């Protein structure tokens, strides 16, 4: 059917050309002069032109033919035919390109980082391009990034998404390579770009913003990220020298969800934590912890607090916890009212603060654990103890809110009034920070890779940007360390859309046949890198679950790097 239509279409076009040629010959003999020649040419053009409708039929017929040929998997002459035609109508050249991709050229894609951004990217790529062959590499022997080492142990529902990611990893076109680092002793960005048609960086933010105030390097001052990695059994933080026994007070700087997570872990009864997949060393430490009071310090007020309602509701609901909120902090300015009006989430968070403030008891009962929300304060310096190696407190400066230009955003400015808050431990929860690798454009100020809808660009000024062909970015490295797991879904959709557009236009695939996975395996072998395949992770997974079962936990995480590798390769 398709073939008949195709032949009919092509036949008609040929006949039209023939008639035109005959007409040209006859008229050229009888008429002379320049004007005549022009008219003649015009006629020739019209005579040769194939009506759009007919062209459409030809294209459609060709598409049908391609499908038939692909289905039968026999050789087709169409590809050759199309290669010999120089300028095809847009529709046809697109078909020709995707056709050639479908037929022979695989699209080799490497995703660096196996957290939500990486896995959502792999999933969308698999759905969006039939010939995509995807390799996901990760620095750790274990996949899933912050779903494993970021999400709090008492939030098991949030981790269910790994089921979906595991199905992606189980796809035959997708492979996982754990224990493979980008840069350093691992594989360089340059090497990856030589091996793959498309490289998508999804390695997130593995460092911390710093406050830049005196005393930040004193003992007892940690980043919340390190603390989170510690209780989640990240192999890099298992040996963190954390002492929870020398003080009864911890200060958390920041009021976002990470701040609430770390405060909750410090305050929640350990009998409840014991039933989660919290790392064994962390549970043991927390069971001996003497910390009874946690202060959550924010530069701005309850209207601007960065947490979500779910996390706030949860911490306010901890059994037997005394919550303290200064009622005067809840007074709203007209600008606050506008902010609340414009944000459903801010409004609901504020209502929770309000409810908690009005229902709180005036004083804690002896021995009761306490949570204090401190608003309108910013850290000025960390105060050293007598030994001067460890902190004994934080000096806070009172702030007030000022409108920042026309943006409507209110920023905290210092008032020059200070007070000291005594404590033996500080967790800085002021944001994660991405780290650049060699050969990667990076905006130090914003802490992200400059990009246009996921396409990595070089050059600081917008008018001088140059697209780094075949290099893309997704997740925190693309948009900064904010958002929830689902944010990465839309983020990945955008990046993959850019990749697919570029592949269609022939920009991402370089034309030369890149080696893809075979090349990666060769490099790993040459460098003696013992990578962990997904089946290796599955071994770790079952050992962890088995060990967990013996303790009444969903899993007991293996936190030692060497042991992870040993179990994976057993």
């Amino acid at each position, binding site marked *: 059917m398709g073939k008949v239509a195709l032949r009919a279409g092509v036949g008609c076009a040929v006949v039209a050309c023939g008639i035109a040629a005959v007409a040209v010959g006859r008229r050229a003999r009888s008429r002379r002069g320049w004007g005549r020649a022009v008219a003649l040419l015009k006629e020739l053009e019209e005579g040769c032109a194939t009506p759009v409708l007919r062209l459409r039929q030809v294209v459609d017929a060709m598409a049908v033919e391609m499908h038939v040929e692909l289905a039968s998997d026999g050789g087709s002459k169409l590809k050759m035919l199309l290669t010999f035609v120089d300028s095809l109508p847009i529709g046809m050249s697109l078909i020709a390109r995707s056709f050639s991709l479908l037929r022979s050229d695989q699209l080799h894609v490497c995703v660096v980082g196996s957290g939500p951004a990486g896995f959502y990217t792999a999933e969308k790529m698999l759905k969006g391009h039939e010939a995509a062959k995807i390799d996901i590499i990760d620095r750790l022997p274990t996949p899933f990034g912050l779903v494993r080492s970021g999400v709090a142990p008492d*939030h098991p*529902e*949030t981790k269910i998404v790994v089921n979906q990611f595991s199905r992606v990893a189980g796809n035959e076109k997708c492979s996982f390579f754990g224990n493979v680092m980008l840069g350093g002793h691992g594989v360089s960005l340059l090497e990856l770009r030589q091996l793959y048609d498309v490289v998508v960086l999804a390695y997130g933010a593995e460092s911390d913003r710093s406050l830049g105030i005196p005393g930040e390097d004193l003992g007892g001052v940690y980043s919340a990220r390190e603390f989170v990695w510690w209780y989640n059994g990240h192999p890099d933080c298992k040996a963190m020298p954390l002492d929870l026994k020398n003080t009864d007070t911890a200060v958390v700087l920041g009021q976002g969800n990470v701040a609430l997570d770390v405060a909750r872990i410090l305050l929640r009864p350990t009998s409840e934590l014991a039933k989660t997949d919290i790392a064994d060393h962390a549970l043991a430490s927390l069971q001996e912890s003497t910390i009874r009071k946690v202060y959550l310090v924010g530069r701005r007020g309850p209207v601007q607090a960065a947490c979500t309602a779910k996390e706030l509701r949860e911490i306010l609901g901890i059994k037997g916890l005394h919550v303290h909120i200064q009622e005067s902090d809840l007074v709203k300015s007209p600008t606050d009212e506008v902010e609340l009006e414009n944000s459903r989430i801010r409004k609901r968070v504020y209502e929770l603060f309000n409810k908690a403030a009005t229902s709180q008891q005036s004083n804690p009962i002896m021995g009761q654990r306490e949570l204090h929300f401190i608003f309108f304060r910013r850290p000025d310096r960390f105060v050293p103890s007598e030994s001067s190696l460890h902190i004994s407190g934080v000096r806070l400066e009172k702030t007030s809110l000022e409108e920042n230009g026309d943006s409507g955003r209110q920023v905290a400015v210092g008032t020059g009034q200070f007070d000291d808050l005594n404590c033996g431990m500080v967790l800085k929860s002021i944001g994660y920070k991405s780290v650049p690798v060699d050969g990667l454009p990076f905006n130090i100020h914003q802490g992200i890779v400059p990009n246009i809808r996921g396409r990595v660009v070089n050059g600081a000024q917008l008018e001088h940007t140059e697209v780094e062909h075949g290099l893309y970015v997704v997740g925190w490295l693309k948009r900064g360390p904010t958002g929830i797991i*689902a944010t990465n879904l839309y983020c990945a959709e955008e990046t993959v859309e850019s990749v697919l557009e570029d592949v269609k236009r022939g920009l991402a695939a370089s034309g030369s046949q890149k080696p893809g996975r075979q090349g990666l395996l060769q490099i790993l072998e040459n460098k003696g890198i013992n990578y962990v395949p997904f089946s290796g992770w599955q071994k770790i997974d079952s050992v962890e679950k088995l060990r967990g079962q013996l303790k009444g936990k969903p899993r007991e995480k293996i936190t030692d790097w060497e042991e992870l590798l040993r179990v994976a390769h057993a």
Partner: protein
Amino acid sequence: MLLSRLSRLGARITGEATRGKFTDTRRGYYEGTFNNYLHFLRNRTLSTTSSDKAQEEGSEQTEKISVTFVDKDGEEKLIKVPVGMSMLEAAHENDIELEGACEGSLACSTCHVIVMDVGYYNKLEDPTDEENDMLDLAFGLTQTSRLGCQVIAKPELDGMRLALPAATRNFAVDGFVPKPH
């Protein structure tokens, strides 16, 4: 009692296995682990009650309602949903691309759907605090947004139309006029 439970388990396993979307992936990895399986059961028990009953009682037909999903491109798909089943499950059984990261455990906002007619929206139970907490974070939230896992088919909802979020870029919720075919 135990026997009937076992047979129900069996029915579920075969149900899952025969459903096309899992056949080419490594389902076995999950089924092998006890915890995951327990979790799986917990999640399914509530919402599959009616269909299980139908299997047990044999001849008795489960009542089904019609629901139309309008996807991101405005494409429509009419499906039949057994009373008692969640829209998330119904979408997955019918290959509608509705995400479900937390598999219906109210820990994410990825199964966000928009009820396209306020009349139907008002027929739903009010969202709980927990659902609202998740809706706070949903992409493209509207006045008639819900989580697909919390909308359970009941007879009054027959004829309901649900849009997947991106579709709202093109269509207003109430004034939506379907394209003639």
